[in-house]
């Protein structure tokens, strides 16, 4: 073990420990409690931020959690995974006086102290209809909870064996402990939502089937299931992985995760500059991989990963190889990964960080030794699923919806989440799910 790896954090060690009671009260006391608070306006899920902070200050954590819960069923999760520095905290008026209020940490605290004391009234049975939600990721869960609270019968169909989507299988446990998601899923259960597992849309779950089963409206919230390929030579070698698969295996296998990391070898190269690439690199370091390099096209300030995530990666000991284009994954005689070759780039047009705008700089070719390579350049909607739906698509190949309502070109079918946005934050998925849910309710109410 190197000296550096001796001091590394454990995989499960939380990045930001929960506030203790007195710390939360102290932090909440700094809040100005603005009129028409900018933090509240900046929250995609519409949480009454100033309100819940006020309740924390008054040592009413259950009341604070209630405000969070009413706006965001995944409020505990979002308190931990939201990019607050570009949302609520960026809007915080207190920034002008000293530092913004640590809203994310206060939200995580409120949830942890109050989620088990929420007032959840069983919805009245004045249902204007039954609704199917396809996909149990953040958008699907937020929609299901909202629909259930509005009094509709909700059934969720999920391809896997558990709910959460990226929360369940993507976001590392050091950022989102399993029990936070579980607490939120229990609330959704209490709202009376029914779940159907192992129902993969397009395979053993078809749209016509849902229509004929008598659902009055259908929400598609499948997410992006398929990892994008970089498309360079060597991707077929033994030792090439896709980040989503790897993160899922790590998250879902507490017993086997260290063994899995060890099997990757001492040197791993991750390709990609987004949050998933950072999550992968940091997870592997925390699980004992000796050295992890992250190779991406963008410079440090240009990466799509949140600035806080990039800082975190550097603190954790990830080697950043930026403004670099991977050219080929090299292998040995046995067909196993031996390294990655790449070249430095510059941007043709300044400020446009897309692959087609990158120009290789001759003479800057490099080679990194690697025992495994992980590709983390994003996800796409699985091929073949959208095409069969006969719904209008966007030029990017995403489902086209009315941005105000989430309604697709088929008035009975709505869509939300990453398959509409192409990949965004958890809280944006929640916001999309909620919006679609309300519109579905409204459209069914109108039909009554």
């Amino acid at each position, binding site marked *: 073990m190197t000296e550096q790896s001796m001091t590394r954090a454990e995989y499960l060690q939380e990045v930001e420990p929960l506030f203790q009671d007195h710390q939360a*009260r*102290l932090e909440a*006391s*700094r809040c*100005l*409690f*603005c*009129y*028409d608070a*900018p933090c509240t306006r900046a929250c995609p899920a519409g949480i009454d931020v100033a309100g819940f902070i006020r309740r924390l*200050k008054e040592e009413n954590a259950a009341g604070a959690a209630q405000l969070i819960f009413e706006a965001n069923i995944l409020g505990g999760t979002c308190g931990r995974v939201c990019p607050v520095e570009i949302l609520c905290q960026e809007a915080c*008026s207190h920034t*002008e*006086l000293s530092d913004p209020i640590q809203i994310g940490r206060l939200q995580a605290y409120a949830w942890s102290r109050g989620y088990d004391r929420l007032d959840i009234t069983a919805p009245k049975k004045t249902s204007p209809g039954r609704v199917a939600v396809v996909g149990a990721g953040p958008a699907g869960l937020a929609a299901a909870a909202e629909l259930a609270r509005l009094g509709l019968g909700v059934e969720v169909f999920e391809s896997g064996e558990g709910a959460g989507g990226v929360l369940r299988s993507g976001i590392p446990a050091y950022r989102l402990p399993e029990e936070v998601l579980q607490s939120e899923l229990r609330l959704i259960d209490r709202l009376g939502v029914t779940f159907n597992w192992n129902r993969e849309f397009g395979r053993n779950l078809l749209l016509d089937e849902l229509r004929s089963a008598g659902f009055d409206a259908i929400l598609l919230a499948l997410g992006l299931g398929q990892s994008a390929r970089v498309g360079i030579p060597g991707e077929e070698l033994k030792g090439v992985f896709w980040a989503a698969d790897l993160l899922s295996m790590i998250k879902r296998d507490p017993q086997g995760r260290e063994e899995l990391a060890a099997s990757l070898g001492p040197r791993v190269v991750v390709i990609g500059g987004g949050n998933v690439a950072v999550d992968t690199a940091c997870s592997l370091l925390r699980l004992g991989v000796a050295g992890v390099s992250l190779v991406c096209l963008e410079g440090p300030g240009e990466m799509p990963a949140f600035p806080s995530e990039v800082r975190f990666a550097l603190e954790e000991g990830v080697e950043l190889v930026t403004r670099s284009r991977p050219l080929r994954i090299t292998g040995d005689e046995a067909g196993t990964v031996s390294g990655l070759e790449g070249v430095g780039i510059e941007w043709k047009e300044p400020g446009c960080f897309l692959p087609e705008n990158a120009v290789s700089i001759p003479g800057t070719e490099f080679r990194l030794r690697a025992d495994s390579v992980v590709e983390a350049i994003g996800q796409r909607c699985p091929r073949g699923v959208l095409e069969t739906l006969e719904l209008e698509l966007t030029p990017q190949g995403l489902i086209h919806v009315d941005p105000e309502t989430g309604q697709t070109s088929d008035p009975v079918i709505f869509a939300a989440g990453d398959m509409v946005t192409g990949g965004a934050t958890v809280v944006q998925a929640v916001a999309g799910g909620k919006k679609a849910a309300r519109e579905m309710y409204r459209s069914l109410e109108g039909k009554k």
Partner: protein
Amino acid sequence: MSRNVDLSIEFCGIRFDSPFLLAASPCTDDAEMVARAFQAGWAGAVLKTTSVEDTPVDLVYPMIVGLDHEDKRIFGLGNIDLISHHHIDVIEERIRTLKARFPDKIVAASMMAATRENWTAVARRLSRAGADLIECSFSCPQGTLGSKPGFMLGQDPELAGEVTGWVKEGAGPTPVVIKITPQVADIVEVAQAVKEGGADGICASNTIPSLMGIDLETFEPYPRVDGKSTYSGLSGPAIKPITLRVIAEIARHVGIPITGTGGASDWRDAAEFMLVGARTVQFCTAPMHYGYRIIDHLKDGLERYLRSKGMQAAGELVGRSLTHLVNHEELSRTKKVVSRIDSRLCIKDDLCYLACRDGGHQAIELGEDRIPIMDEEKCVGCGLCLSVCPVPGCLRLEEVSREKAPAEDNSE
């Protein structure tokens, strides 16, 4: 360039090397502690109150409860302490020891008694022991000696004047200061009575009878002494405005030297006490919270302040604000002020808008950029918006000519 400023000040014929002394309290109930305070630079100390009654002083614990305000601890401090549990023999010995070691520091003794004989006898003993000053507690809210529960001598002007005379009999040449309570209907009447009784000065004032709070889990009030509680004496920053009023009232209406105490935490508070008439300022809660070391900052702050005001001596501050103080009916009604905003400083919390809407005159509207817009027609200049704005200088009251103003608003 710095000119020398004289921090020393005279009070009751005694010169203090600065206006800052320690009040009768746990801070002054031990000779070594007081010695350390003198070494740290305090001008004097009022030793914790002594007496000669037969019953031993029976203290209870816990005796101290803090009152927090949001993120700040000890906005106020409540205590159910009593007088010193040390015998008067010990106090006499302390006076002698401290005076021998620190001849230039002021050692004041605080006393109380239950009978005429004892008021006189204790004063005599303290005077003979060499106390520079005798302070009489007519105002400890708890543990009153020999009278009805909760009663303070300082609440009966006639009795207060009479007892002052008894003390003077025993005190001989030693000046006598009476420590009064703010918990009276007419502070002037009491001050006048003790002055007529022969007091050389007044200590204004003391802690305020209070109930410090309730434990919401157990329903027991604080401090909790084996499931029961009682009323506390409240000190600390929370009571400063009350003390200021008491000092000002006495200074305006009774010609008698005042030592101020109750809620001063720093040199700024002390300067305010002096500006309304105090010659010296006694500290208790602040050194109990932050230690004797605060004396450095008290002296430095006051010295620089005096210099900045072109004053040579601390005494020049005394009573300077009193000419600005009148009764409500004498306040000007002829000038109109309105609130104006420096929008460059606005941080868009819009608390002023909310305050004016729900606690004022709906004189503030919000622009599209969230910057408040003042309606000078509606604004009566009440000052609430300035109080809620977290940015100093963002809002200010400015005089407008009365002629231009609309019909007078008589709603208040």
